[in-house]
């Protein structure tokens, strides 16, 4: 599937691939129902309002969900990290971009889901919103598609630099003193 990083080598069409993704997502989400940010998350909010942060937290978890292998973006504190970075930012246009990006998600949810806000929508409906946002991943056009690039990029950055991402998900073996022979293979 990593073929898909280079469209010319893609084995599944983008549409097929996204359908597979959406199907895979739907199952575990059904149980969740309308989500809200855990109280701890709201307490640390530095830039976003509590509803914005709850929305971001759910979006991040949809992008990198918990699965049988490892916890997801929620457990990794992705939303709180993005919130901190934006509160700490010297670039006001970044803050504006994220705020209006989240608003675009809400607008898209209302458009697709009979006026329902994202967190009030069902699990399937939320996946449908994100699927629409992701449809323009390589060539974003709408505000929601543009926002998806930032949202995913920062979710990836935050998750894979977190304890959860590095140790639980990636099971990274390095950044240790190798006291004997170095790991790896000899050039023979």
């Amino acid at each position: 599937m990593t073929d898909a990083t280079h469209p010319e080598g893609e084995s599944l069409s983008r549409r097929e691939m996204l359908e597979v993704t959406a199907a895979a997502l739907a199952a575990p989400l059904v149980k969740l129902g309308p989500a809200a940010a855990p109280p701890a998350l709201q307490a640390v909010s530095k830039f976003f309002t509590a509803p914005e942060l709850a929305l971001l937290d759910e979006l991040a978890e949809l992008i990198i969900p918990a699965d049988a292998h490892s916890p997801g973006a929620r457990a990794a504190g992705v939303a709180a990290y993005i919130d901190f970075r934006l509160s700490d930012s010297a670039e006001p246009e970044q803050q504006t971009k994220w705020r209006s990006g989240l608003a675009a998600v809400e607008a898209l949810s209302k458009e697709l889901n009979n006026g329902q806000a994202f967190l009030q929508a069902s699990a399937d409906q939320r996946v449908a919103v994100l699927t629409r946002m992701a449809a323009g991943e390589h060539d974003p056009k709408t505000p929601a598609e543009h926002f998806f690039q930032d949202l995913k990029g920062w979710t990836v950055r935050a998750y894979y630099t977190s304890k959860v991402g590095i140790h639980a998900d990636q099971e990274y073996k390095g950044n240790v003193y190798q006291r004997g022979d170095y790991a790896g293979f000899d050039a023979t």
Partner: protein
Amino acid sequence: MTLVRVAPHLEQDVDLSKTYDAVVVGSGAAGGMAAHVLTTRGLKVLMLEAGKKLPIEQELRSMQWPYDHPRRGDAPPGYHSLSFNEYTIRTPPYAKNSTAKHVMSYVGGWGGSDYVKNILVDEKDHPYTGTKYAWVRARALGGKTNIWGRLALRLSDYDFKAKTHDGYGDDWPISYADLQPYYDKVDLYLGISGVKENLPHLPDSLFQRPNKLTSSEVKLREGLKKMGRVLTPYRAGVTTDGLKHNRYRSKCYGRGACDRRPGGCDIHAAFDSPTGLIYPAMDTGNLTVRPNSIAHEVLVDKNTGRARGVAFLDSATRKSYEAKAKVVIVAASTLESARLLLLSRSPQHPNGIGNSSGHVGHNFCEHVMGPGVTGLVKDLVGKPSTLDDGRPGGFYIPRFRNLKDRQPGFVRGYGFEGGGGFSIFPGNAFGTPGFGAQFKREVRDHAGAFIGMGGFGEVLSRYENYVDLDPDTKDAWGIPTLRFHYQFGDNERKMCEDMVVAGREMLEAAGIEVIGTDEKMLTEGWSIHELGTARMGSDPKTSVLNQFQQSHDVKNLFVVDGSSHVSASCQNPTWTIMALAWRSCEYLADEFKKGNV
């Protein structure tokens, strides 16, 4: 964990009333080596460094986990690192009109900008003008050796006698046999890891134990053998077995942070000039170091035209000082050294000291980079994570073009640097489409299955590629800045096209699926291997220095850094810079004792 001894104390007040045997401008690979060789031979040396003496271990924090840093390694708000687009769309000075408080070169954008923000110069204070050029500068004790990439390669007679081989440019005034003993000295004094390959065009060093390969790299090495090409473990200027004679440097423990920071090693297993050369030189009692000292003129004796010292400004107080010395050694980096020579105008040297040839600033060359290939090793998809990044680098594929063959499109050659396997951050996550459980699993399953490599090619030395002083632009200290007149040419473009073709062909030969190619050339300067602006030669009319990096015009002036190189070759220059500086400074010490300089 303390593995290294504390750095020697730097004197606050340097005695400028006395005349030193030699003053060395710059403290990087070249300046450090000059200090080492001359102080060992008993000369009293003053070293001037424009930057600060940093508490470098605190800057580098090599083993800090990303999540233990508040911004995961990023610099605080207000810092901006220049991007490829900025270098491409705009022209220098790149920091002009920037709203950021501090602007760093692109190296700050490698990830880990917080670790280099005090090592790299602030582009706002250090403008330059002219053609596009990604000029990376480090002002700190040790210069760029604090963050260098560590690939340590020798040149061969394919390089020193390149004109004889293919008719282009000029031969060096030395051959490999002249430099080989000094490469050996550098290897033994500083430590280098690697594997012997017996290649005439990439001579072996005296290696300590090598770094290992990952399974995808072994696969590529095997594939290349069938083509008669070589993939060798990264030849790293890193001591893997330790150095009994150096108490400031630990051996390498394969911690691997070198692979995810711009280079720095806080236990100094990777060579850096302060712990490798300068502190041991201070221990001889013969070296005085003055940081925060911005040299802006080589001073000339009115009667003899000889160098008599160096004028400098204190970077903090802006006060002017003169350092007096019997010999002046310029080692400020290729472009800064040319700038200093050009700034040193006097009635005896109206075009700048040592510049009767008019060649100072000219014949400017480097390495071109950008083109590369990425492959996917299918058998590795879904394999459990392994420790693959506990090493200074992955692999090197030495030049294979224009050795016995003659390429129709270009002269000279290029090598590839690359690596494969797991690292601390799964870079494929950015390119994997979609989201959700499948996205997450794909990132995990593929993270260790990629192998990638990029070319480093020789940029031809050409007189018309040059820098001069901009009459209208000054840096934050009022010193005229450099203006660039420098562009890649057709040979570089053809070579870069070939890199993509050859890279693809090599992955395919090893049965590795090519999943991506980079075809664009990065901005001039990107390799940080600038060379040639005060080249050596036997003819004083067409060269600045003789074979001992001694000015043809001014016998007590030496320029011992990369500016002396006659051609760029395609090998990374640091080890050659140090071998040449060692050779020249031994010559200088001999001549000094005889009273000839």
